[in-house]
């Protein structure tokens, strides 16, 4: 599958990572274009269901990123998010959902270079893993099922 280009989505917070991604652009740093960015006011607003829906709708990989701890624009949103991510990630691992395909990061508004790195390494990793067929087989157009 040498010509496979992963379809990825990033859920990022407005004040840090989104601004950081902006900086990557204004610094003219080239990085992989596979990622569609969705802007949230804060990582604390990210509902875990969105991640599942992303896989449902065809994402091969997901990036979730926000302000560094202690730097949240709303003081504690990212702390709450961190707790949620820890639990949600454990659940996904327990159920066999491929957690290698979800990357969590802290990227600040000044870290334009880091954002490019996060995206590039994640896209590279997903490219290695290939498309997320297992999930799509289950979640694609539902077929008639009577007890499997």
């Amino acid at each position: 599958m040498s010509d496979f280009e992963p379809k990825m989505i990033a859920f990022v917070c407005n004040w840090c990572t989104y601004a950081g991604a902006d900086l990557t652009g204004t610094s003219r740093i080239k990085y992989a274009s596979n990622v569609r960015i969705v802007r949230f006011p804060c990582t604390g607003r990210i509902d875990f269901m969105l991640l599942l829906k992303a896989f449902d709708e065809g994402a091969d990989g997901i990036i979730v990123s926000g302000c560094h701890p202690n730097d949240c624009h709303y003081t504690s949103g990212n702390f709450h998010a961190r707790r949620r991510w820890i639990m949600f990630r454990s659940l996904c691992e327990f159920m066999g959902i491929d957690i290698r395909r979800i990357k969590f990061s802290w990227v600040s508004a000044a870290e334009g270079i880091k954002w490019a790195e996060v995206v590039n390494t994640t896209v590279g990793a997903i490219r290695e893993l290939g498309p997320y067929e297992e999930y799509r087989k289950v979640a694609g157009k539902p077929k008639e099922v009577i007890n499997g």
Partner: protein
Amino acid sequence: MNTDKRLIRKDSLENLFDILRKKNKIIYAPVSKNSKIIFNKVESFQEIATGYVQTVQSPKEVYFPRFETVLEYTMSKDNISVESVNPDDIPEVILWGVRPCDAMGIGILSAIFNQDFDDEIYNKHLSHLTVLGFSCNKADEYCFCTSVGGNPGNTEGSDILFTQLGENGDYLAEIITEKGWSVVSLAEGLFETAGEINKNQFLADLPSMFEIDEIRKNLENIYSSELWTEQSLKCIGCGACAYVCPTCACFDLQDEAHGKLGRRLRCWDSCGFSLFTLHASGHNPRQLQSQRWRQRIMHKFSYIPEKLSVFGCTGCGRCSRACPADMNILEYLISLQEATI
């Protein structure tokens, strides 16, 4: 077309199964999963469960599936094309191991799906269905088919009804319909002539527990009674009873879209859910569980008999077995018989 009695040897049952499988027939039969008996597609005779009284789910899974597509659509730049699902695509299925109560339930469900409007998809499922029924040689404390017009050896609804003649015995095979005869014709050699056999001695002994006509009469007078609240206090409002019931037919229509493609699915629904009757205005005529419980009983024992001349219950007892709160419908029906305003 006459109902004929044949004998099939105990060991020949497996041969019959194998012949049907060799002809690529799709067979659904009871299997054990997580210590519960459910209907599932089976490849080999060994998978079929034995020694149980009743399955958890009714065989309606097969001809009224949990969810099925009714139409699909595709959006393009200036057009939406809608395609109804083609009922002829519904495969032919053999249902093996159906109890007489469930076979009777097929007729009730058919009456519901053909009142006012003939449901094409449902009817096609039925026309592609062959029902191989197996009589009951034992019942448990939840069964009450004989109280609602059925019995453990009832042939109604089956294409062939098998009755085992004693423990480890051979089977009496009653061929009831043309579909039954076409199964026989695939394995003529296995169906021997039967002598005079009275199957009743091999059936479960299940006395009638209540007078259904008295209950029906009573129901006309006790709509506003307190007893609906009393009976339903422990109901937790899930959908288990409706989903395992062979005659419950309520369904929801859900649209699911992925980008430019979408489909409309019909899926099971239950009148026990609190939002079942929620109007868009916010008003809910059945806000309380007692109102929903009353609806369940009235629908099965008063409204359906009035509209369709059949009772909406086959006495299979699944609802009570599956209920997490032990809402025992048999117990409640007996007290409804004694109820006064």
